[in-house]
């Protein structure tokens, strides 16, 4: 697009010279380019801006005009933002956009040789200094001072540099202040210190695999292929209809129906890999459990968290029965301190659609949280509200004397649909048996465990 830009940019200046009519073509180009730049910036921030978004945006701008900041903001928000998660990015990017738009337009209005798209584009990737473009007017220093753009670009550039810190570790949030490349950066948490995934996943016996599969089956939320009789099903049960029609002399009066049974699971597995959990649970069993659950469920997102949340779904997808080497290849760390609330908040911010109303969230954590209690309460209420069900597997709850007294567990417990002890796959079979018998909404969980002298027969 560069060559055309150049020639276009020249003509209006020539035409406009000599009279006071503002250069509309340049203004139009300026608006277009700034809008596209804003869309690009939003995409860079991770917002999903539809392809036609910028088209709709400039149409909207044409409808509302460029005079009123609030109206422009509303128009762009309506066209460029298509999900709540992108609103923050938009709010952040808009002031800069507005500033550039106005300064550019003012420059065009007062000075016919305003910022042309050509030089803007060229400087986009440069760090701070705008090189004098051949097309720009060298005898107009005020214009350059006016247009604040280079500085802004500089900011963006340095932000990029921060992300490109050459470490081997996998960054998820990338905003940790202590993280400047040294291998010890994770140690700022009070509990434990991180390390690479260092064990092989255990080979589950057939019985153990069956236990995990059974657990997956009882949590199932999605309709599968199997069908059973149902009053208001989607399909007509031809066989039963035919048989029933014999009673009425061959005329089918009632049409029995069939509906799909929910026997497929969409699941979001959140595994706490903080030091305290890794010390209580056999690490290789933990990996094997996650792997088996990921394979057995129709769709499973897997996240590991200690002080950060790491999406390791792709590693498990590619693992092919060997998650530990996939995790090692991706240089995923584990064994830091626990900030459950922060992990939930990150999940909400970065992967909002990993959890929806048909998703069962399975959290494996001991609930020994060192983070802020309010953050955890916020996170767990969101998760519980959003998800189809929230099941918590706590390694400590295998003990008959377990009480959810730790800060994290006490905060989360009221919002959890069921809390089970989990140290080995056999525990899952026990959990699955209870859910089968009483349903996930029924009295299930550690507090009904017979060993505690509860009401379990």
């Amino acid at each position, binding site marked *: 697009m560069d060559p055309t830009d150049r020639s276009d940019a020249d003509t209006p200046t020539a035409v406009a010279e000599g009279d006071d009519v503002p250069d509309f073509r340049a203004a139009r180009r300026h608006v277009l380019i700034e809008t596209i730049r804003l869309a690009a910036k939003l995409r860079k921030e991770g917002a999903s801006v539809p392809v036609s978004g910028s088209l709709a945006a400039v149409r909207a701008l044409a409808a509302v005009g460029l005079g009123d900041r609030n109206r422009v903001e509303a128009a762009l928000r309506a066209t460029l933002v298509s999900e709540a998660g992108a609103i923050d990015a938009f709010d952040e990017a808009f002031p800069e956009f507005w500033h550039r738009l106005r300064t550019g337009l003012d420059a065009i209005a007062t000075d016919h040789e305003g910022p042309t798209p050509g030089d803007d584009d060229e400087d986009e990737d440069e760090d701070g200094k705008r090189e004098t473009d051949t097309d720009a007017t060298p005898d107009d220093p005020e214009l350059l001072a006016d247009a604040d753009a280079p500085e802004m670009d500089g900011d963006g550039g340095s932000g990029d540099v921060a992300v490109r810190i050459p470490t081997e570790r996998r960054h998820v949030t990338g905003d940790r202040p202590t993280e400047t490349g040294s291998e010890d950066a994770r140690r700022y948490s009070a509990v434990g210190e991180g390390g690479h995934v260092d064990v092989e996943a255990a080979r589950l016996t057939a019985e153990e695999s069956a236990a995990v599969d059974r657990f997956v089956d009882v949590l199932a939320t999605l309709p599968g292929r199997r069908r059973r009789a149902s009053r208001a099903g989607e399909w007509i049960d031809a066989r039963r209809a035919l048989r029933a029609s014999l009673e009425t002399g061959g005329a089918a009066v009632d049409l029995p129906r069939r509906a799909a049974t929910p026997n497929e699971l969409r699941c979001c597995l959140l595994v706490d890999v903080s030091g305290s959990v890794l010390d209580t649970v056999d690490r290789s069993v933990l990996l094997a459990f996650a792997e088996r659950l990921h394979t057995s469920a129709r769709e499973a997102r897997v996240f590991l968290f200690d002080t950060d949340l790491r999406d390791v779904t792709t590693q498990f997808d590619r693992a092919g029965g060997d998650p530990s080497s996939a995790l090692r290849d991706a240089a995923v760390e584990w064994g830091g301190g626990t900030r459950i609330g922060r992990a939930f908040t990150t999940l909400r911010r970065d992967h909002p659609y990993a959890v*929806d109303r048909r998703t069962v969230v399975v959290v494996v954590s001991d609930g020994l949280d060192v983070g802020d209690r309010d953050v955890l309460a916020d996170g767990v209420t969101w998760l519980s509200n959003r998800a189809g069900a929230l099941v918590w597997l706590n390694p400590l709850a295998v003990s008959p004397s377990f009480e959810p007294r730790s800060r994290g567990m006490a905060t989360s417990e009221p919002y959890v649909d069921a809390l089970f002890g989990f140290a080995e796959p056999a525990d899952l079979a026990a959990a699955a048996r209870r859910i089968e018998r009483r349903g996930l909404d029924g009295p299930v969980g550690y507090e009904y465990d017979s060993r505690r002298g509860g009401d379990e027969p």
Partner: protein
Amino acid sequence: MSRDTSPFDAVSESDLESRFERADYVADDRTVTTVGLALQLGRPLLVEGPPGSGKTELGKVLAESFDTDLIRLQCYEGLTAENALYEWNYTKQLLAVQADEGAVADGDRRSVFDREYLLERPLLRALTVEGETPPVLLIDEIDRADEEFEAFLLELLSDFQVSIPEFGTVRADHPPVVILTSNRTRGLSDALKRRCLYLHVEPPDFEDEYEIVRRKVPELDAAVAAEVCAVVERLREEAFLKRPGVAETLDWARAVARLRTDDEPLSAEEMERTIGCLLKEVEDVESVDTELLEQLRAAAAAAEERLEA
């Protein structure tokens, strides 16, 4: 397409604002601009936000203030095209064929695949409504419907037409104003989002909510109304499973208006007794303790000053 005859195209923002005003719908500038744009550009409007923030009300108010039909399609899991778009009136067709009034195959005689035998469901009705002003089509809680249904909506939303295989394509003379609402219980497809303008509504701030309560619950004393809004605002800061929306505020305001006989400030005991209007989950109700009630009372006490400021 004769889009230019629609009265929605020419609507100005101030006009829209005064229409909202007359319908007692308190909207911030962003909402007014976005709705105005959706009308002017003839694009569907996707409204997202927590339950009880006035999404559905927006559709109703639009229809009411432009004095046109509101066609509402409540989405649910398992909603199919037959429920939403059209269905053939099989019984009538069968009778027609038996009485030899129509034929199944094309020929000289009338086919039973004719408008006469078509049962219009909301979406088709929105396209075929007669009259100067196009109707407002409210597709409520689209996130509850399955992904398949969402995909099925795409043709309708982009071209305002539907294809009926036996019949042909039905196209709207006046494209309806389409409002989609979503509670974000699942992500919507990009294809759907791309066709819509997007409006995210949040629960209103203190001043707006006060305005809403004053309009909708006029029987409540002004000072108490301010207290009610301040308490709700404070409650929304708590981590609840279901944070109270505007609908809950109005319920509570009506409850308070009904129960009280004097103009005393709200007491903690009064709040505790009526908390069921605001919180609808047992975990949330249980987490209300004396400390929180005290904070709520303090917020209520400070309400009047904020209003004057």
